């Protein structure tokens, strides 16, 4: 079963907050944007730890390969 979740809060003033949970990397932005576009115009966005985590992991893998093959 997927651990990927989306929390949506629709305020009494109609403002919508879309929050992704467990979706790592840039895909979390794609998922949130797809939901947000249904209701209106994006006012602000915040990228948090999980988004950057995927980028850091990818960079670590590249560094590992570079070291393994003595490319540095």
């Amino acid at each position: 079963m997927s651990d990927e979740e989306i929390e949506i809060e629709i305020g009494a003033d109609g403002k919508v907050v879309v929050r992704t949970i467990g979706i790592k990397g840039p895909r979390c932005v794609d998922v949130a944007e797809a939901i947000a576009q249904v209701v209106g115009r994006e006012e602000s966005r915040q990228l948090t730890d999980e988004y950057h985590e995927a980028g850091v992991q990818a960079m670590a893998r590249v560094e590992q390969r570079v070291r393994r093959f003595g490319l540095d």
Partner: protein
Amino acid sequence: MSTVLVVSPLLVASWPLLSAAITAAVSSMGYATARAMQDSSVRAGQKATARAEIELEDSEILAGGAGTDERLVVERDGILAIFSRDARGALKLCVEGAGRSKAELKQIGEALVGRVAQQYAYHRLMTELKDRDMTIIEERVGADQAIHIRVRNR
């Protein structure tokens, strides 16, 4: 935590769809549809009637539904709220009430408009989530009347 987007709603819909959102919103706030403005208890009042108008810039009532009356009148406690389509095709709300200040009526109108936007967003989102085959695992209304939905992405 990964991404948080804040979105302001754009109400773009045909009048029948929008009037469904208006009806759902105003019903939850205790308003009832007024059959005709002449029958309204507000009109029967002797006090001078104040009036406030709110135009929703971020709205567009799409053409179509020919023959439908693009106007909806609701009432509660002597307050009359008239939703209609303005000349530019945007949604307009006019709030009237005897013995009320213009600022008070504007505040009432803004609360109504907010709840209409909320209902519109709710129905758009629920349709989209179902189309995307997402599983709704929680849905509740908070003390602040905000709707909280939690879905699982497949």
